[in-house]
């Protein structure tokens, strides 16, 4: 008996050594359908080097900073948001990468020298058409108009995108939103607009929640991540309508963590994951918009492109028509003012 | 019966916990005022359940209990006014000795001065007047025992119940406390119902003892009668040391009978708990009522016996012999020069009287 235990123990130890000697590349992302699409588009098509282990996290730079500071980096490639990409690059948490192969093919300029392009996703309003038998809401202005369209609204518990949407609803042109936000009284104006729906909101913080809120009738319309709505329509057959007007587009990037033990391989991997083909392939599995213009061309030619045999472009946030009435979130503005606005937003929520 | 003779009265009381078996069966018991009654029996015999029914912590399944002529089954325990000493004293650990004693008095809303006086008096009674400010856990087991006793008496209950109160003490302290409790009882004349499984404790303290077994009172009587004249083989065996010889009733004649043992010896004995010739009986004979090498004429029963083992105990020699086919037969031989030649393996002549031999029931 004791002998068996000893053998098992030795086995475990040796496995640990083997594990560390030939470490897989660790790719960290957000989980769910999004990571599943990345798995299919990048990981399953990755033939070089050793395997790729996919892990999930909840965003933020906390863990990465802790790993870098402790000089014990176990995450090699991480999927991050733009403001994190900027801060992380500034603070030296990420490595600068070669951007020459995509720099001229980007819908918007890359925010940092550390990033490789991934997707656009957006905060967008949506509703169940059954909730509005008559006139249906069409613009973000309607979302903020509780007289014309009575009922509760679902919004998220943090400030990003809400400020922008409030200003667009208040009549600011999408392209001028950040000018207003940077000017005196701009933020006050946004909060004043938010005040008009304050008594009619239900807050959510998990991405699956707004769909439940709308399905159950807890709210008549809600903001949500566009990919979640798309998945509900395309895969679960729900009938939801988008209000693309006033949507706020966010970007998603891959970065290589500084101090990775697999630097060369990690660089190769992010390059592979940001080719036009890889980005297009991802759209087969989730209706987020690729950041490279040529990927959109590939999808357009390939329609019906989605894996269930339907068109995917109607669910993508970054078609040229939609971009005209969209705000592209400015990570620099948020890196500067995020903390201050978040605190203000906290005060606003609580009062 | 007068009220004084049945201060406490159990009338056809049954108790069952599970609806399938009875823990107490058809109990009838009268306790006169001022008596020290002990309920003695092995564990599971129903004695503690009986006590708990009297205290009010258990309700009889059927029958009624009377206290001072009043039925009390429907009176909750805190209105019965019965004092009780618990097995592990149940002193409140978060209160001082004084506070423990004052508790029943304060509940009864007595004046502060009266409370103090009574507490002091009760503590003096158990000779702990200097320990009032101690916490119970700072006292020795014996002291805690006395505090528990004082607390049960301080509010002058009509009746005090004691549930194996000395069980946790060592032997010497236990014996000392037995006398103390007995003296307190004699001094204040309160009615006491005492539960124990220790027969010597019961014999020392009680006016009367009720021997419990199997949910029933086997015999209730004074200590001497129980010892001298047990009614059945359980009581004979449970109280005091006892030689038992199994045999068949051969003949019956007036108050005597003859019992034949398995090896053919015939023993004359008192006919106590047998009904007919031919039934099996267990003879009971106290070891100190057997004599060695004496004049046979004075005794109805005379047998040869082989000495198997001698145990020297100072004042007497405890001798195990084989007689009438029974090799566990004990004889207590006084330590006198007459018997200095006693040796293991020797053959001696044993004699005993028919009047000391009781033919009792045999339960297989």
């Amino acid at each position, binding site marked *: 008996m004791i002998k068996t235990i000893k053998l098992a123990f030795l086995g475990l130890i040796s496995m640990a050594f083997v594990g560390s000697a030939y470490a897989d590349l660790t790719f960290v992302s957000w989980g769910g359908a999004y990571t599943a699409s990345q798995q299919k588009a990048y990981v399953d098509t990755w033939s070089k080097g050793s395997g790729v282990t996919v892990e999930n996290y909840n965003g933020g730079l906390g863990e990465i900073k802790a790993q870098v500071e402790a000089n014990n980096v176990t995450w090699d490639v991480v999927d991050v948001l733009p403001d994190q990409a900027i801060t992380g690059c500034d603070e030296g948490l990420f490595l600068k990468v070669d951007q020459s192969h995509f720099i001229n093919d980007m819908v918007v300029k890359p925010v940092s020298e550390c990033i490789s392009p991934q997707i656009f996703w957006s905060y967008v309003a949506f509703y169940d058409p059954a909730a509005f038998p008559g006139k249906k809401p069409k613009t973000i202005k309607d979302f903020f108009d509780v007289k014309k369209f009575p009922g509760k609204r679902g919004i998220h518990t943090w400030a990003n995108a809400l400020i922008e949407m409030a200003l667009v609803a208040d009549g600011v042109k999408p392209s001028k939103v950040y000018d207003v936000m940077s000017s005196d009284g701009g933020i006050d104006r946004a909060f004043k607009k938010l005040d008009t729906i304050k008594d009619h909101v239900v807050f959510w*913080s998990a991405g699956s929640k707004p769909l439940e809120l709308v399905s*159950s009738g807890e709210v008549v319309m809600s903001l949500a991540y566009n990919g979640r709505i798309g998945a509900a329509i395309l895969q679960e057959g729900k009938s939801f309508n988008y209000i693309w007007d006033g949507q706020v587009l966010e970007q998603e990037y891959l970065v290589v963590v500084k101090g990775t033990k697999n630097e060369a391989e990690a660089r190769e991997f992010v390059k592979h994951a940001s080719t036009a083909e890889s980005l297009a392939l991802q759209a087969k599995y989730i209706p987020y918009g690729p950041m490279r213009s040529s990927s959109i061309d590939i999808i357009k030619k390939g329609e019906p492109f989605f894996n269930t045999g339907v068109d995917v472009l109607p669910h993508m946030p970054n078609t040229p028509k939609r971009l005209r009435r969209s705000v592209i979130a400015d990570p620099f503005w948020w890196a500067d003012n995020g903390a201050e606005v978040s605190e203000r937003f906290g005060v606003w929520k609580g009062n | 019966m007068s009220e004084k003779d049945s201060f406490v009265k159990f009338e056809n009381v049954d108790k069952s916990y599970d609806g399938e078996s009875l823990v107490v069966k058809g109990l009838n018991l009268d306790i006169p005022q001022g008596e020290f009654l002990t309920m003695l029996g092995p564990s599971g015999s129903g004695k503690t359940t009986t006590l708990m029914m009297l205290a009010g912590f258990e309700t009889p399944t059927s029958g009624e209990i009377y206290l001072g002529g009043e039925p009390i089954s429907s009176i909750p325990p805190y209105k019965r*006014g019965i004092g009780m000493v618990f097995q*592990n004293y149940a002193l409140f650990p978060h209160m001082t000795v004084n506070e423990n004693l004052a*508790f029943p008095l304060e509940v009864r809303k007595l004046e502060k001065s009266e409370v103090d006086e009574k507490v002091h008096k009760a503590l003096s009674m158990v000779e702990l007047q200097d320990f009032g400010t101690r916490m119970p856990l700072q006292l020795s087991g014996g002291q805690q025992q006395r505090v528990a006793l004082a607390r049960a008496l301080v509010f002058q209950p009509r009746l005090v119940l004691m549930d194996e109160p000395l069980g946790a003490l060592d032997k010497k302290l236990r014996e000392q406390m037995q006398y103390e409790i007995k003296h307190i009882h004699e001094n204040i004349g309160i009615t006491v119902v005492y539960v124990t499984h220790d027969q010597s404790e019961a014999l020392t303290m009680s006016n009367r003892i009720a021997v419990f077994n199997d949910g029933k009172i086997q015999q209730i009587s004074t200590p001497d009668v129980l010892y001298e004249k047990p009614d059945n083989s359980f009581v004979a065996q449970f109280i005091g040391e006892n030689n038992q010889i199994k045999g068949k009733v051969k003949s019956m004649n007036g108050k005597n009978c003859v019992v034949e043992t398995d090896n053919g010896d015939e023993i004359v004995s008192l006919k106590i708990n047998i009904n007919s010739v031919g039934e099996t009986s267990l003879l009971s004979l106290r070891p100190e009522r057997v004599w060695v090498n004496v004049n046979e004429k004075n005794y109805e029963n005379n047998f040869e016996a082989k000495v198997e083992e001698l145990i020297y105990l100072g004042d007497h020699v405890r001798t195990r012999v084989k007689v009438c086919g029974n090799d566990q037969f004990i004889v207590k031989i006084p330590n006198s020069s007459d018997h200095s030649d006693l040796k293991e393996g020797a053959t001696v002549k044993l004699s005993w009287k028919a009047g000391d031999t009781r033919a009792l029931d045999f339960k297989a």
Partner: protein
Amino acid sequence: MSSETISGPILTSDGIPLKVSLRKAEKRNKIRAFLLVLPLLAFILITFIIPIGDMLSRSVDDRYINTVFPKTFEVFKKWDKQDLPPEEVYETMFFEINAAKGYKIGKSSTRMNYSKSGWKSLIKKSQRKFKRIKEGPYKEQMIEIDKRWGDPLYWKALGEMVDPTTMGYYLNAVDLKYDSNKEIIAQPENRRIYNHTWIKTFKVSLLVTLFTLMLGYPIAYLLATLPLKYSNLLMICVLLPFWTSLLVRTVAWMIILQQNGVFNNLMVIAGLIADENRWKLMYNETGTIIVMTQILLPFMVLPLYSVMKTISPSYMKAALNLGASPLHAFWKVYMPNSLPGISAGGLLVFIIAIGYFITPELVGGKDGQMIGNWIAYHLKTTLNWGLCAALGSILLAVMLVFYWVYNKIIGVENIKLG
């Protein structure tokens, strides 16, 4: 014995003084005892003492920025804080920004941004454009590159960084800040979030502690007094939530308590509330309290149970026997004896509750968020670990104060977990 008459130290049989011999024998024991606790000691040191020390030092540490702008701060101190700083300050700043290698400047700008929003992008933009400036004077050219260089507010915000230690994070944690003259002033009203959140955190924690006690006490009492076969079943019922994922439980509560949820539907069907007046039990403080009460209930029940298990049932019997009514007996006898369990459970629940953040994040919605949520936010999003450390240190200090008060009133030796 004759030896007793000899004066001087008592010797052992081999002639060594008894004391020396004893010390030697005990030393061996002491070393052995020390070696036995050594792993634990090291473990506590590594996992507890060092991180807490690190947190405390981070909450006041401001050295990093001083290594990037040492000269700027030197000349900055001479400035009279009127209008704009002199050319000398601009010049040193210009050179130190240019000289900063690698990530130094990024890290510094993040720090500067805590004091004044905007520093981050100002530095980042300027860094690139500074290449155009070939020679002084620098002041006008810098203002030309970005007009914010001409905004005194940015410059004055630097004032709180010139010392290697700062109280700025602690001030921030209680809605105060330094003004440009390094005087302590209140935050502008629309940013005063932390004091409000502190109060809410304590209020919610106290209420949760109270509710878990009210719900847990009878359960623990039943557990401790029921026969084993029933109490085992009940114990499983108490522990079952423990074994269920926190998220699953929280989501279940959302489904039950939201305005279109099971509970409100039943109330409407029963006619107890009107359809348009459905109760708001979720996505607010009420929701946070309800869900946290359920989640933390086992932490109250278990210590209570283990203490109650040791309370002999004969105490209650004795009290009843002595004439106390059941209520009086409970209040005067049972309750005081269960106090160690109440305080252990209360302290445990309170301390867990005050640092809680997952549940408030999910169900707190409008006003149910606690200080833990802000710590998590700054930890992950703004990377303002100094503020996190300050918030955490205050939390730690508050816990110690509670512990101290508790010790004064009830006594730590009265905590009992079983």
